């Protein structure tokens, strides 16, 4: 075998080993969780699923999950589309800044989002001042409840609004690049054709075929994220359970022999049902995303002109409203961290007392610097693993595509999307049970909570790096080889140099997602003493608040987490190419 052949073989071995290890790391905890739960309950997964459909509370949770995810998706498309349209069709000053502000919600930790929306809908908050009381459900919301006999419509609307806020950037990320890079003459030409005489026919014959797949793709991901939403449901709809909260509430006592078998049954059946539904959604998303990539590539290659139209007043109003909607809940979190209730008079004053308390901490509450350093350690570990793993897997998929092995590439791509179909709670539980089985001594190892972070964030790294790898012109690498560079130098100058921006974006986003991860940490960190910022916020919010400083302390921790996430995200945005259609 020649030296080049040996090198190629080595690359293949590394790539396939990484793919196999990652898939094993993803599937094994799930297998352990299922195996243990089957063993504890004495029933197999099929019987568990049958039982699921005969249990009222589980069925109710399934219906509610499907309903909130569907309505959240529809509402996100309706609200996100005009914003994406305005951003993509007009020439904006500071477009990167606007994009970053509007996309910040997606990387904001869900526990912070929950706190922000609680402040928004709280008594005395901006919405109640406008006469919309979504929390106590008085006024028009109360009327709505009475007229429709709808139980807690305010809580449901608040949850949908929070999901829209969280997912709106998905619509922007998918639709806006397609719109901004499309040649405007297409629309002008369409007006002269019989199929484009009126607005409706242009929507049907021009816009839907072009942006339809992008909308569908974003909508599918919105559905997945709303379906698996945990912190928002936990805090905004306290009277309702989704599949994810149902599992989390039972997760603590699940998997123990001879003890609380009912909770093991709930977790087993719910996780299988969730896995099936999310797998179908992922298959759907993968297939639609491929169509979207094809259309986006065609448009991007069509020598599109830069958008030159200045935004009109309507566009300015839409974007302004979007920006306000994006930043308002976050500003309220910060304000709430300074707002202290006087227990004697019931009045509120503003001070930095809660910040001082939260910063110093005590034996019942982890200090912010400690929780922050835990969070940072986990996110650095996550990046250190997720980035190379994601890169190698992306390279494997890209190589398979170049070698015309499309089916194998699809299989690998699908396998690496599996974490998106798994509940974070289930991953956390699987790791916990798996470790106890394999090596109980490792249970106290502080690095453990980083494992679910790596599993959860790697698919995002792949989503970002893969499109960039596909767009690299291979002739650069070939020329580098012809110039006599050694394989490492040729790879560096012919491939890696073009991946600097996507790698920075992927790294920053991975860190942001890791910082905000809550579901798996909630399961694993409860089994150790490694509180992260997101777990600290939840712990503070769950404490009895006779002491009026507890809640502002939680908000102070949320503000720190939010600021850290923003910094990382703005770094990512600086490196993101204009019109990039990776979706994240």
């Amino acid at each position, binding site marked *: 075998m020649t030296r080049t052949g040996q090198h190629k073989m080595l690359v293949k071995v590394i790539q396939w080993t990484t793919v196999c290890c990652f898939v094993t790391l993803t*599937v094994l905890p799930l*297998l352990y969780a299922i195996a*243990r739960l089957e063993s504890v309950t004495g029933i197999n997964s099929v019987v568990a699923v049958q039982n699921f459909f005969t249990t009222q*509370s589980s069925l109710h949770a399934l219906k509610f999950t499907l309903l909130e995810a569907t309505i959240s998706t529809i509402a996100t498309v309706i609200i996100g589309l005009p914003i994406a349209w305005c951003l993509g069709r007009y020439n904006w000053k500071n477009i990167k800044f606007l994009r970053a502000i509007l996309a910040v919600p997606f990387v904001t930790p869900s526990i912070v989002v929950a706190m922000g929306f*609680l402040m928004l809908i709280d008594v005395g908050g901006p919405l109640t001042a406008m006469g919309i009381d979504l*929390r106590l459900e008085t006024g028009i919301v109360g009327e709505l409840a009475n007229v429709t006999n709808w139980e807690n419509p305010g809580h449901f609307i608040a949850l949908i609004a929070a999901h829209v806020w969280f997912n709106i950037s998905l619509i922007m990320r998918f639709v806006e690049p397609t719109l901004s890079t499309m040649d405007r003459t297409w629309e002008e030409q369409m007006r002269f054709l019989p199929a484009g005489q009126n607005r409706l026919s242009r929507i049907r014959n021009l816009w839907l075929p072009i942006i339809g797949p992008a909308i569908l793709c974003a909508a599918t991901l919105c559905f997945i994220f709303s379906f698996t939403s945990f912190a928002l449901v936990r805090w905004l709809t*306290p009277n309702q359970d989704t599949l994810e909260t149902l599992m989390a509430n039972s997760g603590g*006592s699940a998997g123990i022999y001879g003890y609380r078998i009912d909770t093991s049954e709930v977790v087993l059946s719910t996780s299988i049902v969730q896995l099936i539904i999310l797998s179908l959604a992922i*298959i759907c998303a993968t297939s639609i995303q491929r169509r979207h990539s094809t259309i986006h590539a065609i448009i991007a290659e069509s020598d599109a002109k830069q958008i030159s139209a200045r935004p009109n007043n309507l566009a300015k109003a839409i974007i302004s409203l979007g920006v306000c909607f994006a930043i308002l809940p976050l500003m309220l979190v910060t304000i709430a961290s300074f707002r202290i209730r006087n227990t004697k008079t019931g009045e509120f004053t503003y001070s930095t007392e809660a910040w001082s308390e939260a910063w110093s901490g005590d034996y019942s509450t982890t200090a912010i610097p400690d929780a922050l350093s835990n969070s940072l350690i986990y996110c650095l570990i996550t990046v250190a693993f997720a980035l190379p793993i994601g890169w190698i897997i992306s390279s494997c998929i890209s190589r398979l595509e170049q070698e015309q092995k499309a089916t194998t590439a699809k299989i690998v791509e699908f396998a690496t999307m599996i974490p998106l179909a798994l509940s974070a709670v289930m991953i956390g539980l699987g790791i916990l049970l798996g470790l106890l089985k394999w090596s109980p001594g490792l249970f*106290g190892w502080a690095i453990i909570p980083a494992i679910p972070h790596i599993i959860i964030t790697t698919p995002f790294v792949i989503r970002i790096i893969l499109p960039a790898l596909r767009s690299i012109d291979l002739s650069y690498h070939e020329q580098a080889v012809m110039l006599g560079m050694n394989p490492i130098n040729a790879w560096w100058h012919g491939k890696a140099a073009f991946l600097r921006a996507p790698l920075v974006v992927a790294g920053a986003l991975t860190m942001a997602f890791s910082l905000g991860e809550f579901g798996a940490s909630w399961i694993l960190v409860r089994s150790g003493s490694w509180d992260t910022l997101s777990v600290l916020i939840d712990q503070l919010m769950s404490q009895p608040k006779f002491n009026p400083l507890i809640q502002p302390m939680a908000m102070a921790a949320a503000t720190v987490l939010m600021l850290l996430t923003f910094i990382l995200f703005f770094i990512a945005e600086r490196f993101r190419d204009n019109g990039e259609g990776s979706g994240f």
Partner: protein
Amino acid sequence: MRLNAILCLTVMVCASMSGCLGALEKENESLECSTFSAGHTDDGKLRILTYDILALSDSMVEEFTNRTGYEIEFIKEDDAGGILDQMMLTKQAQQADLMIGLDNTYLQTAIDNCLLRETVYTQSDNYQNISEQATAPYSGPLAIPFDQGPVCLNYDENFVDGENVSEPTSLWNLTEETWRGKTAFPSPVTSSPGRSFMVSTIDYFENDDDESTNAFDWWQAMASNDAIITSGWTEAYETHYTGGYGEYTTGYIGDAHLTVSYCQSPGVEAYYSGNYTHSTSITLPKSTIQQVEYTGIINGAANIPGAELFIEYLLSPEINAQMPENNLMYPVLDGYGLPETDGYRYHSDIPQENANVEITRINEEMTNWLDKWQSATE
């Protein structure tokens, strides 16, 4: 189609593999009490498994470290149920040396599963200082009571004003139209006070005049009367209850005028609000239950001397007397009670007659009770 086939294949492989793994799991579970081992080494630190509230102030912990040289690390759970779950789940590799917080509705399960080991504290003279009420549920060497308090129903005096709505004289009153949708109960499945209150209803309805109904008939009637069931005490008391501090917190809903808490909760409200509260307790005979919280050395502890010293420290008068301020519960030592400051003692109601259910019976019947409770409230 191919991807669908792959998915089916994956599920099939997972299912078959999980069966093999399941068989392996069972073999591993046949462990004796004596084989429990520590999941950590004795590095001089004392690891305490407890729940997430303020049982011990910073100064108390630092004082212990100064006196004994043992550093302390806390592993925190949500509540007593979380402590038991953690000990059960990690019994092959216990992460802590000492547990603080299991109550009398969970203790027997921990004992039966060999999760605790004997302490020498019962041989100490100081053990005799613990009140009879605190040692009544359990007085063996596996767990030592450190605080206590009666769990009971709290109601909002602004709603129960004595004119339009009068104080319930029977739990059945709560199933009337006046209370429709206005009560909030933490679930006994996921909440420790919720579990204690459910136990008290068992005793209440076993000892009332009506032999044709039992506790679960009442729970069913409460569910039909739109009682709000929450996962924990915090959600019930803070989010739903109108009589407590919840009205000042973010996320407050305020749709319940009655909830489960402690008889001293109105006293705590007053203590933190300048001797003002509009919350009070229902102390009907048998509708309240004494919750006793325990500390004990975990079977699998690495630092047993440190754990023994901490038990002694926790039960010393200087520390135990501070339970009302730090853990919002009564001390267990004879002669110590609630402080009079800002109406703490004045607003804390004394139960007429607590429910009395043996902890062994609680352990034996709890699964059955929880099943029945779930069926009744579903």
